[in-house]
């Protein structure tokens, strides 16, 4: 299994708990849900960074350099094409098209 899955095995149940606490116990209401889920996403990221730092994968990290700002055009082009590609697929898959956006609940 991948490290991302291990991390999610921890944060996924925690996310349910956080959502419940924020919405009902702390009485934030509807907006407690995105707050709790946002915290869970950041926690997943932090745990994965800790994995890379203390378990495996840290040897490819050489600290922050200015080099990351150069050659950005190639990366941006590839990323943009990736967004379009996944967007095309998930629009078809999840029926997010007009049907959901335009229908009244």
């Amino acid at each position, binding site marked *: 299994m991948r490290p991302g899955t291990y991390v999610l095995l921890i944060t996924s149940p925690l996310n349910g708990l956080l959502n419940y606490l924020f919405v009902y116990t702390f009485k934030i209401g509807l907006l407690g849900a995105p707050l*709790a889920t946002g915290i869970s*996403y950041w926690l997943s990221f932090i745990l994965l960074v800790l994995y890379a730092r203390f378990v495996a994968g840290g040897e490819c990290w050489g600290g922050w350099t200015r*080099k990351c700002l150069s050659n950005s055009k190639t990366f941006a082009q590839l*990323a*943009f094409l990736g967004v379009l*590609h996944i967007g095309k697929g998930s629009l078809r898959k999840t029926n997010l098209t007009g049907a959901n956006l335009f229908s009244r*609940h």
Partner: protein
Amino acid sequence: MDNKSVLSLLRSSPAEQTALLPKDIDEPTEGEVLEEDDTLHTRARIIGKELSTLVKGSIPIILAYTLQNSLQTVSVLVVGRQSPEALATAAFAYMFAMASGWLIALGGTTAIDTLASASFTGSKNPQDLGVILQRAFVILGLFYVPVVGLWFASEPLFKTLGQEAYLARDASRFLMVLAPGGLGYIYFECMKKYLQAQGKMA
């Protein structure tokens, strides 16, 4: 076509119309013919082996994506207990987030796959991968800026699309609160790709 004619075909000088592959060359020769029972047995074994490889390979991926999507699914289920309106708003807002911000996390990070595998195997300096990760943090963060702009201005958009006033207002607020967390999701995906490029699957 027997071996003799294949040989003669290969010896004859080729012209523009010569076929690249001789016809019927994949017909079994005498040595390869198997008994009827033997074939059935072999086929069953091959299918069984293939099936177990597919199942073993797909279960971790199914688990990973189920867990990843469970974050927002559980969130919708928990907040949906409050009222039908809350359920509708949460589901609508997450759907809109998925069609905009999450695309950067899932699609934009494929650039790391493309560049990282080449640099990890082709470059002498393994820390080039770290530079690619930094570049992903910077550029995908910039990609996320217009998406957040869209989320903050989404109330009039939802109204124009014909949603009810309460839903347009609440879904827009929902997205505003979700906006900082979305960046965490994008960076989580970046880290996953960074570890995957090094073959850290175990």
